[in-house]
């Protein structure tokens, strides 16, 4: 006997979340309200994503959690252990082995397959919130497709900075209808939002669930004269030499020495195992020894 239910949440709560997920999939990009529950972890730890994972996982799953691309942060480790214990799932750090991946702030570099599910932890689900604080008003704006203000804000960026300065949580339009916040992923990841896997978004404090079914059209908002650009640091990874991955910049010594490395740690390790070595890297086996 265990003193908690399968995947921690009680059945009635999971049914409520599951119904919200189905409506989210039926109306891509629309934020479905749900009654968020207390979870045994603080809000900043992604309780929305955790509740969605709890509603989706089966005992047959292999579960991966990434936090800014890394599997080994306190946040990622504790969520992984939580479901290992409460749902009996296998866990992995390898993207290709995972059937369900919960993420905060990144999409894995490796393309997801059609049998994989990506669950996002979302802090602020409403893309119009910083333009309009009232929930009643933002609901109306979505209902009427009044997205002009969003374009005005992006255009102000251009007039002030000469480019759209928004680098994270860059707004997208889903299937030509709803403007959606993709969560604070770098805009480098936006093109990957059109994928073969199922994407589910959970915001715990704000009590919203939304979804993008596979192969759904997801367009980053832009202008004819300032097209969207999925930019990243103009560097290769110093560990594995990858030129196509999103990079974190690290200060490595007191002299201001810098190092760029893949934010997706599994991707980087995989490349190093294959023998790729970056400018400041050492061969994989040597490092592990």
């Amino acid at each position, binding site marked *: 006997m265990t003193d908690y239910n399968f995947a921690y949440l009680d059945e009635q709560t*999971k*049914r409520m979340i599951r119904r919200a*997920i189905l409506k989210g*999939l039926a109306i891509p990009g629309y934020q479905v309200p749900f009654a968020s529950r207390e979870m045994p972890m603080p809000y900043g730890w992604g309780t929305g994503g955790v509740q969605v994972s709890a509603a989706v996982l089966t005992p047959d799953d292999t579960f991966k959690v990434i936090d800014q691309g890394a599997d080994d942060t306190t946040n990622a480790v504790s969520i992984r252990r939580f479901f290992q214990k409460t749902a009996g799932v296998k866990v992995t750090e390898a993207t290709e082995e995972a059937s369900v991946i919960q993420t905060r702030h990144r999409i894995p570099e490796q393309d997801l397959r059609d049998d994989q599910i990506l669950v996002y932890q979302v802090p602020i689900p409403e893309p119009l919130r910083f333009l309009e604080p009232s929930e009643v008003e933002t609901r109306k704006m979505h209902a009427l497709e009044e997205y002009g203000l969003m374009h005005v804000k992006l255009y102000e960026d251009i007039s002030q900075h000469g480019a759209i300065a928004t680098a994270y949580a860059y707004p997208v339009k889903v*299937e030509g209808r709803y403007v959606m916040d993709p969560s604070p992923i770098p805009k480098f990841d936006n093109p990957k939002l059109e994928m073969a896997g199922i994407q589910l978004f959970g915001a715990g404090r704000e009590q919203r669930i939304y979804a993008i079914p596979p192969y759904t059209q997801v367009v980053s908002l832009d202008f004819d004269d300032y097209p969207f650009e999925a930019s990243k640091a103009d560097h290769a990874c110093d560990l594995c030499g990858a030129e196509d991955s999103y990079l974190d910049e690290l200060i490595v010594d007191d002299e201001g020495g810098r190092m760029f490395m893949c934010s997706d740690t599994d991707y980087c390790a995989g490349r190093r195992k294959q023998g790729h070595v970056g400018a400041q890297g050492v061969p994989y086996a040597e490092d592990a020894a």
Partner: protein
Amino acid sequence: MQSLALEGGFQNAPTDAAHAFRSIMTAMARPGEISRVDGATPPAPLSVATGVTLLTLCDPDTPVFLGKSVNAQEIIDWITFHTGAPLVEAKDAMFAVGSWQDLTLDDFPIGTAEYPDRSATLIVEVPTLDNTGAILAGPGIKDTSRLTVPDIDAFQTNRQNFPLGLDFIFTCGNRLACLPRSTRVS
């Protein structure tokens, strides 16, 4: 209440429901794709797939409408015992169960402009369910898929209401497929 009503539920509700939901979710995310489910044996003429869907999604918070062909005491008892869902008129339903002929689409809530999710999901018992017939396109479908659907005009009308509209789960034996409002049918 007859003892039959007490039987035919999930053996292990938390994990049976978890597996069933994954099948239903995958089907809703990939319109036209046929999923298999098991774990429930509701009274005839309800199919296994309809029974599983009701046990997985319905409870005292979800008013259910029963179509004429399934509105029998035995079925009412089974649904009441296993889910606790209140039985209501079509206009108040979050879920509906029945044959295609049973269900008049105009009677069900399709949501509001602010809350398009406040709309009914129709669980429709169909005699055949195969990847032939109507062509489906839209979110969740790579190029196109095919599905035997009971009507085409009705789903085209439903699509015109997007983002409002009804969502459908077609059930046949232990198999099911979904047609959300976002799908274009031709």
